[in-house]
């Protein structure tokens, strides 16, 4: 007996997603087990950070940026302070630039470890989660040594860094870098090489290159669709033009490539940090900036390569101590648009896998 038509079922997922992405809710329309339509509902974590910025001074706003993508907070600080520096025309000391690169790349590694862990968790691989989180702790310890906090680091200031890393930071960093090849091998063995993981991710949720470009997708998700584009190479900011590294690119366009490309990126980040440790000069870590930050009238847009996508800041200054407008362009908010398009036609369990490979952090999506 054949069934011509199954009754449509509307299923509500969330707002409590059973892993660490945050408060995300989607309404899934199903025909049997096949998805016919997805309506993502966001805003459960909306704090109005852009509005808050208008009533705070430029310096007071730095800690708020930590709360965007809280898994890679040094990167958000970096994007914001660099935008203000660009607006004011501040040159920062060499040592501070190198320290920023080291912290930024450490944040990228930590963020990608969480991504691998949470993807594993979303497709019910509990053990891999533990491995990645164990290693991420070592990066959080390094944050703690320098800035005193583990998640919302707030280690950058307009004009430089907040503090010099202590003496024990450097041996900890060296030993972490020495251990990374072994870590990656472990992740591969327990997660990527696993037959079930490959079955759940390979050839699932195909996003062709043209669709990705048209949807304004950025970051590793774009590079997994075969576009070799990285702001660090294409439009070098800070001192990225001094380092020798590759931009990993994968051509599978599926969930598996979107996940494993983070492994390649961790390798490149390790390369960059090693070169930074080799070249870092002695010297001050703060430029001479006025006590009261008062950028001239003007506007600036600056974007950086966040671990999850491109983060852009558009600041309009009216010449006072408070910005007239701070616009945040979060990478994952724009990337999230691919979910309803790509997940259509897949089974309900694949939707969870596709959403996981976007590596969305709702702190950033909801602002």
């Amino acid at each position: 007996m054949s069934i011509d038509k199954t009754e449509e079922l509307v299923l509500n997922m969330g707002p409590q997603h059973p892993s660490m992405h945050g408060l995300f809710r989607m309404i899934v329309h199903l025909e049997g087990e096949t998805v016919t339509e997805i309506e993502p509902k966001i805003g459960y974590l909306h704090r109005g950070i852009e509005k808050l910025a208008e009533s705070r001074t430029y310096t007071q706003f730095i800690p708020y940026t930590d709360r965007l993508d809280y898994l890679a907070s040094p990167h958000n600080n970096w994007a914001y302070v660099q935008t203000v520096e660009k607006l004011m025309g501040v040159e920062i000391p060499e040592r501070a630039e190198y320290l920023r690169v080291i912290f930024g790349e450490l944040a990228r590694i930590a963020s990608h470890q969480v991504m691998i862990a949470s993807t594993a968790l979303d497709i019910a691989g509990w053990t891999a989660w533990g491995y990645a989180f164990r290693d991420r702790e070592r990066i959080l310890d390094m944050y703690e040594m320098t800035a005193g906090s583990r998640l919302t680091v707030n280690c950058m200031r307009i004009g430089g860094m907040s503090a010099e890393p202590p003496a024990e930071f450097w041996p900890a960093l060296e030993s972490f870098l020495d251990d990374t090849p072994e870590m990656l091998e472990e992740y591969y063995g327990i997660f990527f090489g696993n037959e079930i993981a490959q079955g759940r991710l390979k050839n699932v949720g195909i996003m062709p290159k043209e669709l990705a470009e048209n949807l304004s997708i950025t970051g590793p998700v774009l590079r997994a669709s075969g576009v070799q584009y990285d702001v660090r190479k294409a439009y070098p900011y800070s001192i990225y033009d001094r380092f020798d590294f590759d931009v990993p690119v994968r051509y599978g366009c599926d969930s598996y490539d979107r996940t494993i490309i983070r492994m390649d990126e961790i390798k490149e980040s390790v390369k960059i940090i090693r070169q930074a440790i080799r070249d870092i000069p002695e010297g001050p870590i703060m430029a001479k900036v006025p006590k009261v930050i008062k950028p001239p009238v003007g506007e600036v847009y600056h974007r950086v390569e966040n671990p999850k996508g491109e983060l852009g800041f558009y600041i309009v200054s009216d010449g006072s101590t408070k910005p007239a407008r701070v616009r945040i362009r979060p990478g994952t908010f724009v990337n999230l648009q691919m979910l309803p398009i790509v997940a259509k036609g897949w089974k309900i369990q694949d939707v969870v896998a596709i959403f996981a490979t976007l590596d969305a952090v709702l702190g950033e999506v909801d602002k």
Partner: protein
Amino acid sequence: MENKELLKQRVEELAGRVNGEVEEILGTLILKVQAPYVTETLTAVKSFDDVPCDFLHDLAGLDLVDHLEVVYQLTSLNGPQHLRVKAIVDRENPVVDSVTRIWQGADYLEREAYDMFGIQFKGHPNLKRIYMWDDFEGYPLRKDYETEPIEIRNLVRQRIDGE
């Protein structure tokens, strides 16, 4: 540098056709047009010869008290060119063409600009609030939006605690 000269030339040519103004702030070219010319401008910008700005990086609202603006940040995946296009929108009757037909990725960004500034994007397939709830009143990022004073918020909190 050559790339930038070429882009400047193309933008100035286009500005003549769409009644736009060209200026440069901190190394970025800015093209200001009136709202009715948006679709024409952006279609032309997307297919510039040699220097196409074909990647919509960001779309945001901006409140300048006497009028609103929609700011498009355009780049390309194949070159260093970048351009900022601004559409001047009337504050009382903020209507502008949607660019979702040119870039599908403008969908959420336009919904956000509608949510925060009340800008109506004509031709958008699903123009609903995205962050705030559906029956929320007002547009929070407009300069005349009044935030709740902290005294009132504390009063509400006391009343709840007291019960």
